[in-house]
C-alpha cells in the first residue's frame, strides 16, 4: 500500500514503441481480463455454493413460516412485519447499533495506537504482539469468566478498585443502566487484537523512503502520521472498519455468557435474537427474515462508508 512515484498513465508502455498500439492494447487487456476472471473463479464459485445458495434459501424462507417440523407455508411479509414491530427485536437492533457505534471506533483507534507502538525496533516486540493478540485466541468462556469476576458486585476487581477511590460499588451486569456499557468495554477489549494485527501488517508494508524524505523536509512525526501514514492506511482502515462493524453486529458468544441478553433485554443483540428464533423457538422462517433485516442494515452501512470515503484506495 504505497505510492512511490508520481502517478503515471498506466496504459502507456514505457519503452518499446508500439507498432499498432490499439489492437495490442485491446488484446493485452482482454488477456488480463480473462486471467482476472479465471483467478477469481474458484473463490467465487465456492462462495456462490456455500454462501450464495444459503442466502437465497434464507431469503426465500423468510417469506414462509418454516419451522422444520412441518412443510413451509408461504405467509408473505408477515415475518418482516412481526420482526419490525417486535419490541424485543427492536431493542436488539438498537442495542446492536449502540454496541457497534461505541466498540468499533474506539477499538480501531486503540488498535492503531498499539500497532504504531509495536512497529518499532523494540526488544521483545514479538512477546508484546503476542500478548495483545492473545484475547483473540483465548477461549470465549475463559474471557467471559474473567470479566464476570471483574464485574462481580461483591468480589469483583472493578468495584474493589473503585472503592479504593471512594466511588461506590455498582451492580454492573445486573443493572439496566450499566449492563450495556460493561458489555461494550469487553467488546472493545476483545476487538483490539485482530485490528492491531491488520494495522501492524499494513504498517509493515509501508515504504521507509517516503518517511525519510519527509524527515529530511523537516516534517514532525505527528505531521508525518497524518499526511503520510493515515492516507496510506486507507485500504487497511476500510477493511478494519467493515469487518469490525460486521463482527460487532454479529457479536453473540461473549454477550450470551455475560448477560444472556439481559437484564430485561437491555443487552440482547440482533444475532442472539436470530439464534433464539431459529434454534430455540424453531421459527426458522422468522429467523430468516430477521437475518435479512440485519443484512440490509450492514449493507447500507458499508455502502454509506464507501460513499463517504470515496472508495478505498489511492490508485484505481
Amino acid at each position, binding site marked *: 500500500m504505497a505510492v512511490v512515484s508520481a502517478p503515471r498513465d498506466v496504459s502507456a508502455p514505457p519503452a518499446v514503441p508500439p507498432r499498432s498500439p490499439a489492437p495490442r492494447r485491446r488484446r493485452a487487456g482482454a488477456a488480463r481480463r480473462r486471467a482476472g*476472471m479465471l483467478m477469481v*473463479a474458484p473463490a*467465487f*464459485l465456492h462462495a*456462490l*455454493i456455500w454462501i*450464495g*445458495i444459503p442466502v*437465497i*434459501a434464507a431469503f*426465500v424462507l423468510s417469506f414462509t*413460516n*418454516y*419451522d*422444520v*417440523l*412441518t*412443510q*413451509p407455508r408461504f405467509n408473505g411479509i408477515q415475518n418482516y412485519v412481526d420482526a419490525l414491530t417486535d419490541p*424485543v427485536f427492536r431493542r436488539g437492533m438498537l442495542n446492536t447499533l449502540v454496541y457497534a457505534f461505541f466498540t468499533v471506533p474506539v477499538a480501531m483507534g486503540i488498535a492503531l495506537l498499539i500497532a504504531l507502538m509495536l512497529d518499532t525496533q523494540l526488544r521483545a516486540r514479538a512477546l508484546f504482539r503476542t500478548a495483545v493478540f492473545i484475547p483473540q485466541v483465548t477461549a470465549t468462556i475463559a474471557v*467471559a*469468566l474473567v470479566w*464476570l*469476576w471483574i464485574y*462481580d*458486585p*461483591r*468480589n469483583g476487581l472493578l468495584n474493589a478498585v473503585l472503592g479504593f477511590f471512594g466511588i461506590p460499588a455498582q*451492580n454492573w451486569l*445486573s*443493572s*439496566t443502566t450499566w449492563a450495556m456499557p460493561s458489555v461494550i468495554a469487553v467488546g472493545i477489549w476483545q476487538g483490539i487484537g485482530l485490528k492491531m494485527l491488520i494495522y501492524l501488517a499494513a504498517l509493515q508494508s509501508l515504504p521507509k523512503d517516503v518517511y525519510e524524505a519527509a524527515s529530511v523536509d523537516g516534517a514532525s512525526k505527528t505531521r508525518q502520521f497524518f499526511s503520510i501514514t493515515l492516507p496510506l492506511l486507507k485500504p487497511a482502515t476500510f477493511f478494519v472498519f467493515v469487518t469490525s462493524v460486521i463482527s460487532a453486529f454479529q457479536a453473540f458468544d461473549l454477550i450470551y*455468557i455475560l448477560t*444472556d*441478553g*439481559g*437484564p*430485561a*433485554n437491555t443487552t*440482547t443483540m440482533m444475532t442472539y435474537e436470530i439464534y*433464539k428464533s*431459529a*434454534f*430455540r*423457538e*424453531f*421459527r*426458522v422462517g422468522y429467523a430468516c427474515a430477521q437475518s435479512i433485516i440485519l443484512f440490509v442494515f450492514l449493507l447500507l452501512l458499508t455502502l454509506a462508508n464507501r460513499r463517504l470515503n470515496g472508495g478505498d484506495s489511492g490508485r484505481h
Partner: protein
Amino acid sequence: MEFSRRSFLTAMGLGTAAAVAGCATTSPSGSSAADPTGPVEGDITFLCALFEGSTGKETLEGNLIKKFNEKYPDVNVTVDYTDYGSLNEKITTGLASGLMPDVVTLGVGWIPPFAFKNAIAPLPESLATRYTYEERVLEPSRYDGKLYALPMVLDTRIVAYRKDFFEEAGLTGTPKNWDELRDYAKQLTVKDGGKTTRVGFDPFSIDLRQCWETFLFGNSGELFSPDGREVLFDSPEGVASLQLFLDMMADGSADFALKTEAGQPTTLQQGTSAIMMTNNSLYVQLQQQTPELTDKIGTFVLGNTDPAMLQGGTMVSQSATTKYPAAARAFVEYMGSPDAVLVASEQRGSVPAISDLKDSDYVKGNPMVAFAIDNLGKARSEGGTPAWMEIREKIKPTLETAIVGQQSAQAAIDQLAGIANDAISRL
C-alpha cells in the same frame, strides 16, 4: 462469460433442488411409520444428550448397548453424542434434512410441540405402568392423553438453606408458606453498615423462569389449560408469584445483584444467602468444593398453598419417521428401564425417574437426590402447550422487566400472556 454463467445456473439449480428436496422429505402429517410390531432389526441412530465423555461412552456403548444387543442382536445402534445446549441445533438440522435420528433425548416441555407436529411417535400406554413412576413424573411425557416419551433423569428445583444460619437466628423448622418465608428471610438478612452481606433469600441463582414457575405452582396456579390452548398464568396467582420476589427485594431480604455467578460457588456456600433456590445437583458440587458444609445445608419444598417442586429432566423418544420402528421402540423401552436410568442419573448427579430406584446405593448415598425422589409427589413441570418452544425463551426477559423495576408485576405478566397468546394463535 459462457462458462461461468452456466456453472452459476447449475449451482442455483443444485441449491434450489437441495432446498426443495430437503423440505419435501420432511415428514408430512400422517406419518409413514411402518408396523412397530414387526421384527426387531435394523440400523438406528440415537441422538444422545446424556452419557458425555469417555466414561459416558463406555457406560452407554460398552455396557448398556451391549446388554441391549444380547436381547436384540439384529439391531445396530449408532450413537450421536451432543451436549444439551446443541441438542436443538442437532434436531433442527436433522428434521430439516429428513435425517431425524431414530431415537432422541428431549427435554421437559418439548413433547407437546414435537408430538403436535408429528415428529415423534406415540408409545403404548403399557409402558407407563411397566415400572413405578410417579404420575406427575409422566406428565411431561404426555400429549393429548397419549404417552410419547419415557423419562430417564430428572433435575429438580428445591429450596436449600443453611442450618447454621437458622440456628444463629434462633429459627426452628422451615417456612411453610410465603408469609413465613418473608418473615424468616427478614430475620436472616445481615447488613454491615449500609451494605447487605447476606440476603435472607436468593431466588436468582436458578433461571428466573423456573423459579417463578415453582412459585406459581406452589400458589396453586397453572401455566396453561389442559389442552394447552389457553393461557392461565395471567391469574392473580401468577402475578402474586412474581410480586413475591419484588416484595422480598423491597424488604431488603433479596437482591437481584446478589446471585451465583458462573464459575463461582453458590451464594449459599459463600454464606451470602441463607435460603436459596437450587438444583438437586448441588450435593455433588458440595462434596467437591466445600465438603465441610454438607452437614450444614438442608433442603425443603416450599409452597404457599400447595408445595411444589419443579422438575426438569431428559426423556427418550422415538422418531415418527424412523425406518425401523420396531427396533427404535425396543431401544426406547430399554433406555427407559431401570438399568439405563440408574447409570444415567449416577453420572450426572440427577434424580432417576423410576421411583423403585430410591433403594439403590446411588440414591441412598446422595441425600438431595433421595429427598427429591421422596417428594416426587409434589413434582410439577413446565410446558404443557404445543407453542411452548416459542414461549419459553421469552419468559425470563419479560419477567425481568418487573424485577429491575421497569414495569409492575401485573404489567409484566400481562405482556407475557400477550406473547404466549400470539404464539398459540400461530399454531
